[in-house]
């Protein structure tokens, strides 16, 4: 192996090492059985959850997500989905840290409006700074703006996660040029969070050199989520292998794969 070939090193986020580069969400599944089966089929080790008010006065035997996706088996990545201000996002992260016994890895997202779920980068930057100073390891959802991505890295976020397209839209990578600039500049892992619709989207992100992808709707809203979870695993693995292997150059003209020499009509 020559020295300038790309070497596979596992995904490392704030000192935590993960064998899988696929992160999956736990929203939108039919029930916790389906969640558990899809999460398992994806091969993921890093699973996002949301933090919400507990239902009061309801069935005390209500099933718990963390039984379906146990902390003994998966690293839990609590998100701040639904927060529109830095203040609410910081509060949510602190609640998550308490909920998970001091676990300090969080997925920060501060949204701009509920129509686009586009990140409010001003509030995101504020929240990121507060959280990093408070000792959180912050994986941050953001726009595909390379300047903002670099600023989040400078603040001390341990991973930057630009959207491929709008959350839950399944439109894939709408701005690969911008993503390529972010990847070129990055010194922390870059993961595509949001917009992946199908395994080819995930493979493309990985081929481009993303450290990972975070997928929820594309698995949960597939007709067969467990099968799609497996498909996403294969796509992420394939994309990663392709990134390491480095693709052939594109050519303007054809280049035969079979030699000209020895043709019977020569």
């Amino acid at each position: 192996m020559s020295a300038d070939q790309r070497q596979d090193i596992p995904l490392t986020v704030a000192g935590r090492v993960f064998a899988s580069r696929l992160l999956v969400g736990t929203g939108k599944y039919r029930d916790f059985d389906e969640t558990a089966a899809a999460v398992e089929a994806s091969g993921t080790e890093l699973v996002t959850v949301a933090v919400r008010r507990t239902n009061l006065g309801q069935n005390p035997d209500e099933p718990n997500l963390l039984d379906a996706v146990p902390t003994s088996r998966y690293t839990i990545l609590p998100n701040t989905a639904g927060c529109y201000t830095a203040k609410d996002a910081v509060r949510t992260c602190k609640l998550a840290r308490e909920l998970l016994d001091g676990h300090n890895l969080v997925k920060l997202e501060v949204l701009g409006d509920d129509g686009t779920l586009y990140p409010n980068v001003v509030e995101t930057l504020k929240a990121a700074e507060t959280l990093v100073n408070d000792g959180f390891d912050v994986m941050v959802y953001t726009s595909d703006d390379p300047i903002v991505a670099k600023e989040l890295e400078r603040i001390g976020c341990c991973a930057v996660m630009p959207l491929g397209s709008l959350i839950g839209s399944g439109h894939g990578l709408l701005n690969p040029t911008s993503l390529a600039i972010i990847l070129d500049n990055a010194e922390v892992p870059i993961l595509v969070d949001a917009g992946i619709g199908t395994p080819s989207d995930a493979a493309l992100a990985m081929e481009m050199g993303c450290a990972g992808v975070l997928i929820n709707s594309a698995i949960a809203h597939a007709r067969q989520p467990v099968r799609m979870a497996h498909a996403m695993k294969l796509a992420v693995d394939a994309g990663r292998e392709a990134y390491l292997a480095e693709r052939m150059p594109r050519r303007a003209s054809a280049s035969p794969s079979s030699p000209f020499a020895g043709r019977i009509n020569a």
Partner: protein
Amino acid sequence: MHIQLNGDHRELASQLTISELIDQLALTGRRIAVEVNEEIVPRSQHADTRLSPGDRVEIVHAIGGG
């Protein structure tokens, strides 16, 4: 006395501790986190933290999300 519990008005018979409130809500042993007036109350302090009238209490748990 009245408190705000998860955004709703709630009348308590007496000044409960957080542990007592959790018990009354049949949430003992559940994986939850508690915030009072926007400050986390660590699990280790639930038994010693007594609620006051007007306190804003949030009790949260993990649910599915992306």
